[in-house]
């Protein structure tokens, strides 16, 4: 009997292996390698009737889209297939994972041809060499400039934007009749409703950082200042400026008097708003469907006191390893970037289009309101230091709300930590990188040379404090070249005659000997002394 049991078990194993082989056997089908249809269809695409489309598409593009956007893209893809006999395979991918998964798949050549990402991920994808630049040609003028800027990295465009998103101020029309002009008015109106038992809180929001950015800006706070060209300047952190501290003080006062909740989150705030227990709610397009479904009488408005929210841009990017780069670009510029498709994407996505002809004609009141609330918006900074900003900003607010720290102390702590992360740890280093460094303890062979961050050759201040000196280094006979580099990087460097970015400074040793350097920070001239 046991033997039988064992037989059954082994049979099961065998069958299951077969099952696995067959069931999973759907091999990853690559795009059918059919060269462009032998009889090239005529120019007018409509001349190819959809019903007579051949069974095999002429080419296949793969595109990763998250679940909320997938239905509208599926529709667009179906129409594209009917028109051009080119298949766009929409693969639904979990939003939070698109970037990680793409970074795993793309280097092997397996990734999709097109991905959709928010602009703040674009910089990393470019730095990793995974996305290809893209040329919109004449269509470039049809996109909103800030949206294009968001996808422009080092002067090159890497993405085709299609939607912009920002939060807006939602209000419950049953509770609110007069829109508040200032944040003080808003809290006062909310407080009154709360005292009457009509509201749980004055204002709902997802988190006290991203969602309330408009409040901080009203008080004069900012995250990063801007340089002359209008780019964010990471050296200018505004998290602890006077306005920011005032704003946090204002928030804290309202937490203390019960007007705001210190532990609210997006779920709770949405629930309270749709239950009619929250007069004001700051949120973005992602909650619009839920609010509509709940049938709460809502209105939308710009922010009080001219507050400016963050904005994000969503766009298409191309896989640098795609075999179909030209086709993918043509699909984007010739098909997606048209009034019809762009307005379809706008309607399906709840977000104002980044495509001017469509953006200018928005009639949907909700989209219009989002557009107005975002008219003065600031693009979300897309620099790596934002990781440190989010973490420390949130912490500071939490500590204030919990009464552990005063607003100024908490924000100064946070700003200091962010500045520490941004600051170059080698700031202040003066070095003499060159072809001698491998003899001075900077490493072996060529890899040990020309290292501006090598501690072994860093210069020290001379005793009189007027110059920097290093050495003596014992060097073998030969020809050498050096430069002066500051802060452990090549960003600031000096060559012959103290010229910034100038030619290499050369010196030779006829026999083995000792070399020391001296650098004058005033004239940037390097003196080489050979013994």
């Amino acid at each position, binding site marked *: 009997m046991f033997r039988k049991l064992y037989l059954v078990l082994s049979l099961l194993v065998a069958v299951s292996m077969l099952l696995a082989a067959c069931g999973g056997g759907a091999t990853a089908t690559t795009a059918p390698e059919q*060269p*462009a*249809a*032998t009889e*090239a269809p*005529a*120019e007018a695409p409509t001349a190819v009737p959809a019903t007579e489309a051949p069974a095999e598409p*002429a*080419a296949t593009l793969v595109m990763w889209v998250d679940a909320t956007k997938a239905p509208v893209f599926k529709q667009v893809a179906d129409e594209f297939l009917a028109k*051009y006999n*080119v298949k766009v395979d929409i693969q639904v991918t979990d939003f939070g994972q698109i970037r990680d998964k793409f*970074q795993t798949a793309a280097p092997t050549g397996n990734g999709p041809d097109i991905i959709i990402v928010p602009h703040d991920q674009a910089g*990393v994808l470019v*730095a*990793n*060499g*995974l996305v290809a630049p*893209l*040329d919109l040609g*004449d269509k470039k003028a049809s996109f909103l400039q800030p949206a294009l800027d968001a996808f422009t990295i080092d002067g090159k465009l890497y993405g085709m934007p299609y939607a912009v998103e920002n939060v807006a101020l939602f209000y419950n029309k049953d509770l609110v009749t007069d829109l508040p002009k200032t944040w003080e008015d808003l809290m006062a109106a909310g407080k009154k409703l709360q005292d009457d038992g009509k509201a*749980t809180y004055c204002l709902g929001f997802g988190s006290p950082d991203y969602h309330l950015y408009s409040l901080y800006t009203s008080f004069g706070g900012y995250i990063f200042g801007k340089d002359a060209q209008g780019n964010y300047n990471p050296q200018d952190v505004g998290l602890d400026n006077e306005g920011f501290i005032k704003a946090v003080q204002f928030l804290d006062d309202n937490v203390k008097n019960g007007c705001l909740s210190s*532990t609210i*989150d997006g779920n*709770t705030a949405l629930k309270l708003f749709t239950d009619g227990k929250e007069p004001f709610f700051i949120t973005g397009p992602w909650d619009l469907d839920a609010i509509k479904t709940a049938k709460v009488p809502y209105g939308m408005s710009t922010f009080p006191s001219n507050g400016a929210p963050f904005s994000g841009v969503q766009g298409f990017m191309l896989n640098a390893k795609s*075999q179909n*780069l030209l*086709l993918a*670009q*043509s*699909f984007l*510029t*010739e*098909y997606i970037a048209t009034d019809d498709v762009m307005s379809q994407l706008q309607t399906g996505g709840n977000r104002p289009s980044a495509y001017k002809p469509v953006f200018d004609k928005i009639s949907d009141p909700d989209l219009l309101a989002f557009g107005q609330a975002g008219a003065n918006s600031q693009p979300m900074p897309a620099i*790596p*230091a934002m*990781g*440190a900003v989010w*973490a420390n900003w949130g*912490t500071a607010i*939490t*500590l204030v*709300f*919990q009464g*552990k*720290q005063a607003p100024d102390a908490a924000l100064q702590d946070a700003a200091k*930590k962010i500045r*520490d*992360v*941004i600051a170059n740890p080698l700031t202040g280093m003066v070095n003499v*990188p060159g072809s001698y460094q491998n003899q001075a303890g900077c490493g072996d062979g*060529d*890899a040990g040379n*020309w290292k*501006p961050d090598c501690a072994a050759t860093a210069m020290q201040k001379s005793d009189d404090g007027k110059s920097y000196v290093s050495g003596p280094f014992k060097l073998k006979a030969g020809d050498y070249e050096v*430069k002066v*580099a500051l802060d452990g990087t*090549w*960003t600031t460097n000096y*060559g012959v005659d103290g010229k910034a970015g100038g030619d*290499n400074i050369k010196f030779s040793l006829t026999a083995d000997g000792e070399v020391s350097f001296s650098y004058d920070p005033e004239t940037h001239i390097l003196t080489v002394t050979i013994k």
Partner: protein
Amino acid sequence: MTANNPVPQPKKQAENPFSVLLRLFFLLVFDLGSGWFIVQAVQSGYLQLAAVVGVVFLLVNLVLLLPQAYAYRWMVTGLSFLVLFTIYPMLFTIYIAFTNYGDGHLLTQQQALAVIEKETYLPKTGKSYKWTAFKAADNSYALWLIDPDGNTYLGKVGSALVPAKPGDPGIGQADSNGIPTSIDGFTRLNPILAATDKELPNIKFGEAGKTIQIRSPSEAAELKPRYAYDPAANTLTDQENGEVYNDVNGTYTSRTSGKAIVPGYRAVIGFQNFVNFVQSPALRGPLVQILVWNFVFPTLSVLSTFSLGLAIALMFNDKDFPLKKVFRTLLLIPYTIPSVITVLIWRGMMNPDLGIINHLTKTWFGFSPPWFSEPIWAQAGVLLVNLWLGYPYFMLITSGALQSIPADLYEAAKIDGANSWQAFRNITLPLLLVAVGPLLIASYVYNFNNFGLIYLFINGGPPIVGATTQAGHTDILISYVYNLAFASGGRGVQYGLASAISIIVFFIVGTITLVQFRFTNMWEEVSKNV
């Protein structure tokens, strides 16, 4: 231990000839299959894959051929999978700890160079055009080109561009964009249909030396590759201005301007990641406080989940318990639903202002526990949620393991006058620990690195006031350092650093595990006395 407790080995029986044959037949099939696979892998250039499968090949052959390795025949399948999918990835992680793998250095050198070599530039004398493709019956192409000044040309492969105008002989009339609707012998292609031919961007139009390639739907130009790679010196030279870029730790950097070419590649950088960790602000943060909690949290988690799980298993071990199947199934529920959602549900229920738990405690005791702001309550909250998540595991395991305890032992104890507690203390628990002991360690280790719960439930909070780094009262080592290596470090994702850190963590936890292992040896001894 085998000396004083000899285990009888089967008498040297001659192995059944049928089973020898079966074994050798299996080995033959396996060797043929894996040998073929290794050859294929080498031919495709997948050397690492070939090496790993090669190790498995050797392993299987040794085990099946050497009589000394008899015992390993019982686990050779498992070992092969272990080597393939656990050991090899571990070695990979260790290797990465010595590289700068991470944002900016994600590709291998070969892949990065392939990307860099695709970069092109338009030489000063070069021209760029707008293009329209025409295709002949023999699949050759002609391009209608318009330069920025509005001059139009016809371009074919191998011959110079010919100035042409719509209406010229053989060329049809212009459409509204000034492009001829037809060219004799060719069919005009819509840009999308033209682009379906993957080869089109590689075709060089025009005379040699001044060839034009399609670069985008709107541009064809006389492009030249921007960088030339010199494999001997491992340098790249910019063809436009002659600037030379040298390899500095995986980034091609110019010695004159300091400019770097994007992307960099994954380079071996020795112990740099370990040095960086030692010098990082992470160690200046509240590391001791975090370590203490990192030991308290898994200890209490294991104790609480094991006790509750065991209590439930004991309770339902009673044959006469009514509806016990239904009860047990309901008690398994926490284990069957993804914790992504249940942890957030708990978060909501414990909301100090609105949550149902705090509502009830306020009504009953007039006190609302500050789960998210007071360190001690936050830690209690994490433990409570982990108890809910974890007890079904031990309920399952102990209810299985309890069956191994022979009922006669209890009979004997009863006759000796032992009460229930004594029976539990002296029989149930020690025997149970034989089987379950190692799982307690495993559970401890799992919770030691239980990043998911800490992150989802409270993200390490509440924050520690005045800490020099981003740290919270429920942060464990892994959530704390990963936060520094990934999120708040400000340099993007640094896998190399993170791997180095995880190896350091491995040494800490591994030592603890081995120390605890001595107890499992004890447990094994216990079983000998049965």
